[in-house]
C-alpha cells in the first residue's frame, strides 16, 4: 500500500550547469549561521528573472517572499536597484550592488523550450567576494512555476546557511468555517506559503489532526464519519480513503512511523482511559505500547523510530514521557510548572516541540529529548499543535483568539524571534508540515 504514486511534477535538474569563470579576488564567502538567532536579516537583491511574460517576475516574487519570511534575509526593494540585469549569463557590476548593501544577488531567466516546457535558470552571486555561488537550471511544465521558485529558494537558503531548506513543502491542515459551536471542518492542503490551496474533504464530518506519511502521498487523520470517531488513511492524489484498523472504540492522535510502515495512535479503552498502539500497515497487526490507567496520547516517533514521545496524565497532570519503540522503559521528561502536551519529535532528532499550559496561557516551546534546556518560543491565549519544518529549524502551530473568532496558522523559528502569520482562505488549525518534495 506504500507504493509510490506518480510524482507531482517532473523537474529535471542540471546542477551547477554553468561554469562561469570570473577571476576575482578571493574573499570570505557569505555564510549565515542560523543557530545564533540573526537579529539583522541579511540584505539580498532578488532581481526579476528575464522573461517574455510575467512568469519571471512572479518567480522572483515567490523567492523574495520565501526568503523574507525565513527571517534570515531582507530582500531589498527593487526600486533601490542601480544595475538593471540585461544578461544573467555575465557577472553583475558588483560595486553597484555593494552600494545598496546587497550581500548577495539572485539573477535568472525563464524561457520556453521547443517542446513547450519551461526552462528556468538562476545564479546566486556573492557581492562582496565578487563571485558566483550557484548556477543551476530546471525544466518543468509551465504550471509548476511556483515549485521552481521554491526549489530555487531552497538552493539559495542551503548555500547561504549550510542548512537544508524547507520551502518546497506542503501543509495539510483543517480548514474551519461557520460559527464556533457549529464549525465545519475540512481537510485542506496547500504549499507552505499558502498557495495552491485545495480541499481534501467535503465538510460533512468533523475531521481532525491530519499528518503526512514520510513519502507525502498519504495522510492519516481522525474523522467522525463513522459511528465512532476513528483514524483514517487518505491517498492524497486519488482521494481513496480507508479506516485504519478494526477497533471497537474511538481511535485518535495518529502519526506515521518514520519508515511509513506503521501508524501509532491512541485507542480508547472501555474504562474511559486511552492507551497507545502501533499498527503495522502491511500485516494489519497491532501492538499495544502502553497499558496505564491514564490518558496516554499524542505519540510521536523519534526520526530513527527507536523511541516514542507521548503525553500522559499517569502522574496526575499531563506531562511528556519518552519510551522505547516497543513500549518499554517510559520516562517522564517534563518537569516545569503547568501541563505539557502535543509533543513532536524534531526531524533532526535533537529536540521535542510541545504545547505548555501555565498561568492561563498556552505556550509553544522546545526541549531536548531528555527534557533539559526547555525554551518557550511563543505565548498566547490559546495556541497549540506545533509541527516541524523538515529542516527542524521552524515550527508551525495554530493560535486562536478569545471569543467567537477562529484559529489561524503561524510559524516561528527556533530563535523565537521570527513569527509569521500564514494566510489561509478561512480559519485554520491542526497544521502538519510535509517532508521536502522530490
Amino acid at each position, binding site marked *: 500500500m506504500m507504493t509510490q504514486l506518480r510524482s507531482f511534477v517532473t523537474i529535471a535538474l542540471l546542477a551547477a550547469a554553468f561554469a562561469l569563470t570570473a577571476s576575482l579576488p578571493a574573499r570570505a564567502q557569505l555564510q549565515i549561521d542560523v543557530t545564533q538567532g540573526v537579529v539583522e536579516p541579511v540584505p539580498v537583491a532578488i532581481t526579476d528573472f528575464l522573461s517574455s511574460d510575467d512568469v519571471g517576475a512572479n518567480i522572483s516574487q515567490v523567492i523574495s517572499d520565501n526568503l523574507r519570511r525565513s527571517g534570515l534575509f531582507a530582500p531589498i526593494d527593487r526600486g533601490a536597484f542601480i544595475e538593471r540585469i540585461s544578461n544573467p549569463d555575465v557577472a553583475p557590476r558588483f560595486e553597484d550592488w555593494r552600494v545598496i548593501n546587497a550581500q548577495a544577488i539572485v539573477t535568472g531567466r525563464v524561457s520556453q523550450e521547443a517542446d513547450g516546457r519551461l526552462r528556468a535558470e538562476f545564479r546566486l552571486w556573492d557581492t562582496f567576494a565578487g563571485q558566483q555561488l550557484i548556477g543551476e537550471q530546471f525544466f518543468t511544465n509551465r504550471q509548476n512555476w511556483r515549485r521552481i521558485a521554491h526549489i530555487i529558494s531552497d538552493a539559495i537558503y542551503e548555500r547561504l546557511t549550510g542548512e537544508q531548506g524547507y520551502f518546497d513543502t506542503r501543509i495539510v491542515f483543517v480548514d474551519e468555517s461557520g460559527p464556533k*459551536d457549529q464549525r465545519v471542518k475540512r481537510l485542506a492542503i496547500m504549499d507552505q506559503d499558502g498557495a495552491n490551496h485545495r480541499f481534501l474533504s467535503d465538510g460533512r464530518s*468533523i475531521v481532525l489532526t491530519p499528518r503526512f506519511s514520510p513519502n507525502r502521498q498519504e495522510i492519516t487523520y481522525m474523522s467522525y464519519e463513522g459511528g465512532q470517531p476513528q483514524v483514517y488513511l487518505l491517498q492524497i492524489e486519488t482521494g481513496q480513503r480507508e479506516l485504519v484498523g478494526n477497533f471497537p472504540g474511538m481511535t485518535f492522535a495518529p502519526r506515521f512511523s518514520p519508515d511509513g510502515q506503521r501508524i501509532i495512535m491512541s485507542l480508547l479503552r472501555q474504562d474511559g*482511559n486511552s492507551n497507545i498502539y502501533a499498527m503495522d500497515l502491511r500485516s494489519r497487526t497491532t501492538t499495544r505500547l502502553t497499558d496505564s490507567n491514564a*490518558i496516554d496520547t499524542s505519540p510521536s516517533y523519534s526520526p530513527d523510530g527507536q523511541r516514542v514521545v507521548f503525553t500522559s496524565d499517569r502522574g496526575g497532570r499531563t506531562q511528556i514521557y519518552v519510551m522505547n519503540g516497543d513500549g518499554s522503559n517510559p520516562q517522564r521528561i517534563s518537569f516545569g510548572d503547568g501541563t505539557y*502536551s502535543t509533543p513532536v519529535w524534531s526531524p533532526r532528532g535533537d529536540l521535542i516541540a510541545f504545547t505548555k499550559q501555565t498561568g492561563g496561557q498556552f505556550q509553544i516551546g522546545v526541549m531536548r529529548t531528555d527534557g533539559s534546556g526547555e525554551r518557550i518560543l511563543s505565548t498566547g491565549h490559546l495556541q497549540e499543535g506545533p509541527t516541524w519544518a523538515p529542516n527542524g529549524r521552524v515550527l508551525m502551530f495554530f493560535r486562536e483568539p478569545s*471569543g467567537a473568532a477562529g484559529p489561524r496558522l503561524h510559524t516561528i523559528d527556533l530563535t523565537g524571534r521570527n513569527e509569521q502569520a500564514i494566510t489561509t482562505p478561512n480559519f485554520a*488549525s491542526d497544521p502538519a508540515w510535509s517532508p521536502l518534495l522530490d
Partner: protein
Amino acid sequence: MRRIAAMTRSPIIIALVAMLAVAGCANRQTPNTAADLGLGGAGGAGAATPGSTQDFTVNVGDRIFFDTDSSVIRSDAQQTLRRQAQWLNQHRGYSITMEGHADERGTREYNLALGARRAASARDFLIAQGVDGNRIRTISYGKERPVAVCDNISCWSQNRRGVTVLSGAGS
C-alpha cells in the same frame, strides 16, 4: 452570552435549545438557537408529554457538568444522573448516547481523551443506578462542539459537560 441568558429564563427554551443542539451534532446545517428558529415565548412546544425526549430534557435534565480537567461526577451531577437513571429505567425503549465534551482550555487530542473519560464516567454511574449498559454508547467530542461561545470561566464551565442523548422508540 445572549443564549446563556435566555437559558436561565425559560425551561421551555432550555429544552428546545438542548434538543436542537443535539440535532446540530448530526447535521450542522440545522440552526441551533431558539432565536434562529424564531421560537421563544409561549408559541413553541407546550407541555412535555411524559416519556418523551422533551420530558427527559425539561423535567429530568439531559446534561451534567464537570470541574476543570476532571471526570469526577460532582454531587449536583449525581442528582441529575440519578433522575436520568430513574426515568430511563421507566422508559426502556430508548437507547442512550452519552456525549463527553471538554472546554477549549486544553489541547485537542488530550481533550478528545478527556471527553471520552467523562462520557465513560457518566455511563458507569448510570449503570450503577441500574440502567442496562447495552443501551448506552459513548462518544467524545473533545472541544469540538462548545455550547457556550465566549471567553470566561462561566462559559467554559458550560462546555465541560456530559450530555445524555436519547434515540429509539421510547415508551
